[in-house]
């Protein structure tokens, strides 16, 4: 336990940066390479790294299994909701143009909402898979 003190300190220092980088990839993904998938994996990897270093119990206290499951569903629902919103506003499913008074603004809004849904789902799924396997022995 004492031997990995370096790792623990480094992980503690790194974690905020990992999460910030994840959100950078997320929100910058609209105009440059990146997006929900990559951001979701980065955020998920941050949580998994925390779980590996500080133990599953502690990680599950930060983000519980139930919370992860809900996160996955919420992400999908956010994605679907954006699609249905486009439908209700007179466009086709996932039509972003109608989301705002200005089609370009609508595209911005739509893609950010969609990618946010993807972020939730991907991050949630990564952590859920990790929990499912790591928590098995008990």
């Amino acid at each position, binding site marked *: 336990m004492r031997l990995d003190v370096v790792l623990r300190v480094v992980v503690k220092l790194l974690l905020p940066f990992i999460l910030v980088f994840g959100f950078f990839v997320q929100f910058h993904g609209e105009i440059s390479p990146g997006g929900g998938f990559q951001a979701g994996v980065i955020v998920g990897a941050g949580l998994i790294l925390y779980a590996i270093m500080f133990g599953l119990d502690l990680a599950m206290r930060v983000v519980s299994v139930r919370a992860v*499951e*809900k996160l*996955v*569903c*919420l992400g*999908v*629902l956010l994605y*679907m*909701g954006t*699609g*249905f919103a*486009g*439908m209700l506003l*007179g*466009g*086709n*499913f*996932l*039509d*972003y*143009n109608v989301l705002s008074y200005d089609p370009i603004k609508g595209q911005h809004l739509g893609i950010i909402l969609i990618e946010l849904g993807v972020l939730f789902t991907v991050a949630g799924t990564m952590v859920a898979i990790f929990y499912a396997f790591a928590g098995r022995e008990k």
Partner: protein
Amino acid sequence: MISTQLLDQLPALQVCLPLAGAALCALIDRRYIAWVLTTLISFAMPVIAVMMLIQVMTVGPISYAFGGWEPPFGIEYRVDVVNGFLLVLISVMGAIIMPYALRSVAAEIARNKQAWFYCMYLLCLAGLLGMAITADAFNAFVFMEISSLSMYVLIALGRDKRALVAAYQYLILGTIGATLYVIGVGLLFAMTGTLNFGDMAERIVAVEQSRPVLAALAFITVGMCLKLALFPLHVWLPNAYTGAPSVATAFIASTATKVAVYLLLRFYFSIFGAAFVFEDLPVTPILLVMSVAAMFAASIVAIFQGNVKRMLAYSSVAQMGYITLGIALATPIGLTGGIVHLFNHALMKGALFMALGCVALRIGGCRLDAMAGIGRRMPITMAAFVIAGLSLIGVPGTVGFVSKWYLALGAIEAGWWWLAFLIVGSSLLAVVYIGRVVEVAWFRAPTGTAAEATDPPLSMLIPTWILAAACIAFGLDAGFTAGVAAEAADALFAGLRQ
């Protein structure tokens, strides 16, 4: 105004409602709410599908551009007679099974997993509907995997521990099948530069004789035949059907393999073109041999099964043989027979597996020796079983007769008299295995748990009987099914190229 707008959105709703419903089921995680939600959505599906089919029959094919991106650049959903018919079939089966599911799932699946069962059921439904409705080759792959992955979970939820191994085997073979399909699509994409079915059909003409296109045809054929369990590639099917919970078996057996058949038809007739596939290449003899082998080998294996569920699973392999036989004939009448059998087989296998689910609810299993005398204790259930069984044999007046009639006509029209005899001969094998069950269930004294069994609650009986009655109704009046199937066959032969 609102209504026409809603009408335009039907293709998207068909797939998106169950997808959103699946997420909601998992989010709420309460089994009754999940059941109510799943029932509501699965009952909305046939309404949407029938409205679209009516629109297709009166106005013509529906095209829906996803996200407002016009095809061939965006993903297109396209409904014509062929997949409109299939959508009706899948959604009707999905809806009929739901009232039945409440009691059956409660009995067979652990409490805390029931909401997830409904979540997976809706995902599977969405995947199958998506595969049928999409006009994009890669999108079809994604939906195929959505339906397959949820199907693996549905199977693994079975009580028997062998269900796990069955799900694993299906996962391996199903993934290989889907991957082979993607390889084929990748080769076509490299040659034509498009994934849209209609666009691909137009561009493929120029490169038809090139080697990648031939390889693509081979990959897609083998991949889809794995998914539809054509005879030598059927090994995953019996274990999967036997291990899965009754509701899952009834649903998967009546829909999953059918969608794979549809995709194969779509590629053969709409994209590659019937002339290229059946006249330039020896697809007919290959499919013919495997179909006939399926009809006989699988039926013979079915006779020797001790578990009725497994027996019916082998019978499914045999019945798939009839459907591929219809494709192999490659004539409008033969194809009509294949498509009608697609529909009819779903009805009768649905009824049979649901009747077995009722038996499993009462005696806890489907072993033939445990079912002795069950017909006297559960007469209404087993009567439905007998009707659907007669239909499987192809007795006149049932749906099985209609499809075999068309297949035999197609065979005779092609000049293959022997094939018509083989169709009749393989039906005799069905007499043997259905007869075995009838003999044990009705003519032996009830013993053990079977002696105390009673007919299941109405929520299970009524759906079973709806399907059994449909076996008779569509057998006596084949106008609707055969009519639509004939139109679908004509549409397939006409192709997508305008």
